[in-house]
């Protein structure tokens, strides 16, 4: 049985369609990340699952029960918001127990659950404080606790780390992953941050214009993006793109201008000819000794160097397009130098120009 099932979900605000015929199955205990740029409908989808927005069409099942018309509190979900949304006039304890009091749960049971959640999240010393006296990280922990005490099957996270500073975000990200391993609940997590998506998810659903572009494990999405949007969205620095032509002679080749790249090591999904995008991630532009064994070799002029510590990003131009190359962190290279590179074709991606789908 699936934990959450979404069948043919439509949602429109007036004439504007936010979600179009969306289908999604989320397994028991799965960590699913909804990823996309702002306005892609990911938060809207989460609000639909939570029951905070009324759907225009379609069905939502949670644990096999049709909850399309159910109130948010009846759906067996807990939700964590970007702005924490703690009740400012209640203490941390009051915040944690508010939902339980609404269920008219016995006091002893409330106390037990609050104590357990506080222990898991290490917020025991804060229980008597008001949210105003907490730091951002502590507030977010209380917000998670509010979902935790309700003992729900499905956790919904709406960009929970976006309001925190970079250091804290990394720490809480790890904590969230640990929490998921410990609890084993189903978690649905909305974010626009691809690092959060890659690190946390069992599966990522990349959304654009209310449609899921690709639903896959993080490494699959990274290695074999199903269309050009996904390829360009995932990965930082972004994938390099060239527009040209694929021809299947004795050996398949990609050609643009006077450049011809052999594609013999590329695994085609659909071996079609014609106009195509050639995409290559910056780390698959090999340099030094690795370049020797590549299917296509050339020499580029270094235009700009961005040392980032762990690695160095080199900017250049290839076939008239900006070309990014990721190199060793300690590389000593200056603008103007010539650089021998090779393209690792086995890791490249080809997309049809008209449909933008993977070839």
């Amino acid at each position, binding site marked *: 049985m699936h934990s959450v099932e979404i069948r043919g979900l439509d949602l429109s605000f007036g004439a504007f369609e936010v979600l179009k015929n969306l289908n999604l199955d989320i397994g028991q205990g799965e960590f699913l990340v909804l990823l996309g740029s702002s306005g892609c409908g990911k938060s809207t989808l989460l609000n639909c699952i*939570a029951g905070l927005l009324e759907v225009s069409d379609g069905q939502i099942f949670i644990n096999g029960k049709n909850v399309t018309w159910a*109130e*948010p509190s009846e759906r067996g979900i*807990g*939700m964590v*918001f970007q702005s924490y949304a703690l009740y400012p*006039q209640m203490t941390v304890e009051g915040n944690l127990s*508010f*939902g339980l009091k609404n269920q008219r749960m016995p006091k002893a049971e409330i106390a037990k659950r609050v104590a357990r959640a506080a222990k898991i999240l290490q917020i025991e010393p804060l229980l008597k404080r008001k949210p105003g006296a907490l730091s951002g990280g502590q507030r977010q922990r209380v917000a998670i606790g509010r979902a935790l005490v309700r003992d729900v099957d499905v956790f919904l996270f709406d960009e929970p780390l976006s309001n925190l500073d970079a250091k804290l975000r990394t720490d809480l990200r790890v904590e969230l992953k640990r929490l998921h391993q410990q609890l084993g609940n189903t978690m649905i997590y909305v974010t626009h941050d691809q690092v959060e998506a890659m690190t946390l998810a069992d599966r990522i659903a990349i959304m654009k214009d209310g449609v899921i572009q690709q639903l896959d494990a993080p490494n699959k999405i990274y290695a074999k993006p199903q269309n050009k949007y996904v390829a360009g969205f995932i990965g930082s620095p972004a994938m390099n793109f060239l527009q040209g032509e694929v021809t299947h002679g004795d050996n398949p080749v990609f050609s643009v201008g006077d450049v011809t790249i052999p594609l013999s090591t590329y695994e085609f999904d659909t071996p079609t000819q014609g106009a195509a995008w050639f995409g290559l991630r910056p780390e698959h532009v090999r340099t030094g000794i690795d370049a020797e064994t590549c299917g296509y070799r050339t020499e580029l002029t270094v235009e700009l160097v961005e040392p980032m510590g762990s690695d160095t990003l080199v900017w250049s131009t290839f076939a008239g397009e900006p070309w990014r190359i990721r190199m060793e962190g300690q590389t000593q290279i200056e603008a103007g130098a010539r650089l021998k590179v090779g393209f690792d074709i086995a890791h490249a991606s080809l997309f049809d120009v008209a449909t933008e789908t993977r070839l």
Partner: protein
Amino acid sequence: MADLTASSLSNDRALRSGPAGPKPRRRLSRANIIVYGTLLVFSLYYLLPLYVMVVTSLKGMPEIRLGNVFAPPVEITFAPWVKAWAEACTGINCDGLSRGFWNSVQILLPSVTLSIAVASVNGYALARWRFKGSELFFTILIIGAFIPYQTMIYPIVIMLREIGLMGDLGGLVLVHTVFGMPILTLLFRNYFVSIPEELFKAARVDGAGFWGIYFQIFLPMALPIFVVAIILQVTGIWNDFLFGVIYTRPETYPMTVQLNNIVNSVQGVREYNVNMAATLLTGLVPLTIYFISGKLFVRGIAAGAVKG
């Protein structure tokens, strides 16, 4: 390549000549003189009438007849205040303003409570529980704030007569409640809209309903706007004359109407000291409210700009 040798880290504190630290300010600059001078002139302008009233109310009639309105009283007497409160005559009644005062209190308390209670729930519903036609409802309510009262006086007379409340204090309470509704609803709606929507969503996930969210989440956060509403309603209803004179009978006249009847009575001598004392007495309630809640009032008015 830039010359990197020029910049170096050092800990010795060697300042060069010229400005350093905070910029000095002169107390008696030209700008200050203009600002404080203007403020002084305007406050005198506003305070002078009040001064004349207080001074006159503390004089006896012989002293007033001397004609020097600005002179302080030679002999301070509280007799005019006592007379205004307990003895001044309107028509055949000679029990002063006290009766009007208690009438006004009886009008004020239920009107303020009722109008704020209804309007805050209205505003809350319009801000967070959108229903079909809620925008239209809100628009109609706002238009209500701009319709001149005069056009509605006679229809209300008929309505009150039909439901048997004409001339009754209850009728006046109803009128005040209804007329306070547009502006108060607007006030509360705008305040509740400024409370983050995620808070409302979180409360719904936590299983709180319409009243649960109102009483447990929104109400405790809305104290500043309640103070603003109370001040608006207390002063508005206390100072009301038009509705008071139309919808009540002489024995239920509010204080303002009675004040008018005392000041404008045509029999006998015009007792300026009693008139002044009566006016000050009538103005005392709104004045007290302002003094007590001044700070809270400002905070409430500015509350939309700051997040809690």
